[in-house]
């Protein structure tokens, strides 16, 4: 059992003006695959390094499996870590690299040999065990780094952007392999990445970080479908979520939002924002486009049409606001031509203009999702 409990963790680097990690609270359940996602400099790697014990904390507590490890060195935390640079020891063969941790534990030679061979086999490294890292490709070195971590049978597996140095195709292959490997390992896993596709595809839950704070922590689909802030919506998803400005109005007890002279029905939570602007968030795939005018649709103008193979990515303008939508490839979109948009009503999200926070269900519903 290795639940990881992070309480009020704060860290400011010497000479840093803002804290790199600011009062973060996070619980990672036993066996869970948690992804820390955020732009560079958001503190995700710092948080991971504090969990690993490679960085001191300024305040707060970290416990692994009910044991307070805040002040323990890495070797006493029962963790294994995969580094972004792989950190494979160049002066040792692949075999010795994988065996390193077992030898530090003073396991018997026969056990070391058996375990190393098994994990080398898992990562298809058998032909290379006698080689030195300099004789391996980047992808193979990466596999050595993973093998070296999983051979320890750690309770907690920490990974710091392990795929970011691989080329795109290799990354795609290895991502699926990694997911399967970690599922079989049953270790509690924390995975740091700035790649939202990786986060969505790998994580049981995603913690989105920005400026040292966790903004939202929920399942990949929830993060994607119900972003807690405008930032989350624009960081996750390709293309990012569309945001349009509209004004909340109330007539006869009904709340609605006007967007460039068109009226959208709005949920009752928006009532308190009556008379003010809000941001309307909608994903590109949740907007349907029509080539002909129909009563309820929003008239817009096509600006750019980009064929993506499976879809067309259309940039359209409503008044002076722009949004992107995906259409079928046979949609007759013409640059500068008119088109009519029908956003799916239950996929509309509402955000405060000044704070960027979502107006809608309570925060609880959001994190529990």
């Amino acid at each position, binding site marked *: 059992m290795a639940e990881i409990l992070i309480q009020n963790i704060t860290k400011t680097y010497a000479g840093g003006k803002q804290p790199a990690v600011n009062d973060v609270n996070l619980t990672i359940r036993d066996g869970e695959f948690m992804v820390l996602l955020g732009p560079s400099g958001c503190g995700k790697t710092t948080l991971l390094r504090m969990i690993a014990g*490679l960085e001191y904390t300024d305040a707060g507590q970290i416990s692994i499996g009910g044991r307070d490890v805040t002040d323990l060195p890495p070797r006493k935390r029962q963790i294994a870590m995969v580094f972004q640079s792989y950190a494979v*020891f160049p*002066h040792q063969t692949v075999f010795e690299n994988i065996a390193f941790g077992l030898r*530090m534990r003073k396991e018997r030679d026969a056990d070391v040999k058996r375990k190393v061979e098994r994990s080398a086999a898992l990562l298809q490294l058998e032909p290379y065990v006698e080689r030195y890292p300099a004789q391996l490709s980047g992808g193979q070195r990466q596999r050595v780094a993973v093998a070296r971590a999983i051979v320890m049978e750690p309770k907690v597996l920490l990974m710091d952007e392990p795929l970011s140095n691989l080329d795109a195709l290799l990354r795609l292959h290895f991502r699926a392999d990694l997911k399967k490997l970690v599922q079989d390992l049953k270790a509690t896993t924390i995975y740091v990445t700035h790649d939202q596709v990786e986060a969505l595809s790998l994580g049981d839950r995603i913690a989105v970080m920005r400026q040292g704070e966790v903004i939202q922590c929920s399942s990949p689909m929830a993060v994607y479908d119900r972003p807690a802030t405008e930032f989350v919506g624009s960081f996750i998803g390709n293309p990012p979520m569309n945001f349009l400005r509209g004004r909340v109005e109330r007539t006869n007890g009904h709340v609605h939002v006007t967007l460039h002279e068109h009226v959208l029905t709005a949920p009752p939570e928006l009532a308190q924002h009556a008379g003010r602007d809000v941001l309307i968030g909608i994903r590109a795939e949740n907007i349907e486009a029509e080539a002909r005018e129909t009563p309820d649709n929003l008239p817009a103008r096509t600006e750019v049409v980009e064929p993506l193979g499976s879809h067309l990515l259309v940039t359209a303008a409503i008044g002076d606001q722009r949004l992107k939508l995906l259409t079928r490839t046979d949609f007759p979109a013409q640059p500068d031509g008119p088109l009519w948009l029908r956003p799916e009503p239950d996929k509309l999200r509402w955000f405060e203009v000044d704070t960027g926070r979502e107006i809608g269900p309570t925060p609880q519903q959001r994190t529990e999702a």
Partner: protein
Amino acid sequence: MRNSLVVGLLSLVLGAPAGYALARFPFRGRDSFKVLILSTRAFPIVILSIPLAVTFIRWGLYDTIWAVVLAHTALALPTTILVTSSIFVGVPKDLEEAAETLGCTPFGAFWRVVLPLALPGLAAAAIFTFVLSWNEVFAATILTISTRSRTLPALVLAQLNNSPLPFHFAGGFALVVPSLIFILLMRRYLLNMWGRVTK
């Protein structure tokens, strides 16, 4: 001969930890410390030798091996520190951290990972100090009298001054030999290590 070897080792033993500290830990005044280290080289040995001789006589170190060893180590230390620090910078910190997550103490990580990787560079630093000490004759002559404690070059030089000209040349050539052998031996080792470590 032995003097120069001792100097090479001693300055490495003293200099390498300082180099490691300079390479890894961002302490206050690190940059000015680097300059300060170099500043000892600013004093000509000619000026230093006489006060050194006086001090060594007072301490009872005069005319011992240690007199030369200490003086040469002091001279060699700045270069050793700077060279070793750049060697340690070349060993990624990730490797050390990886070793620590795999069960090493910080010293264990240094011993098992950093040191083997830095060894070729450290060997080069040792050669450098050896040659430095070998070439330095002035202080060695001033600080010693007896044949027991003089470095070989200082001794040979003193002897050759009283010899006919052909012996001068022969002696000069002979002096090159130990340096050459030492470097040839180390060089093979260096290339071997580097060929394996780097791509």
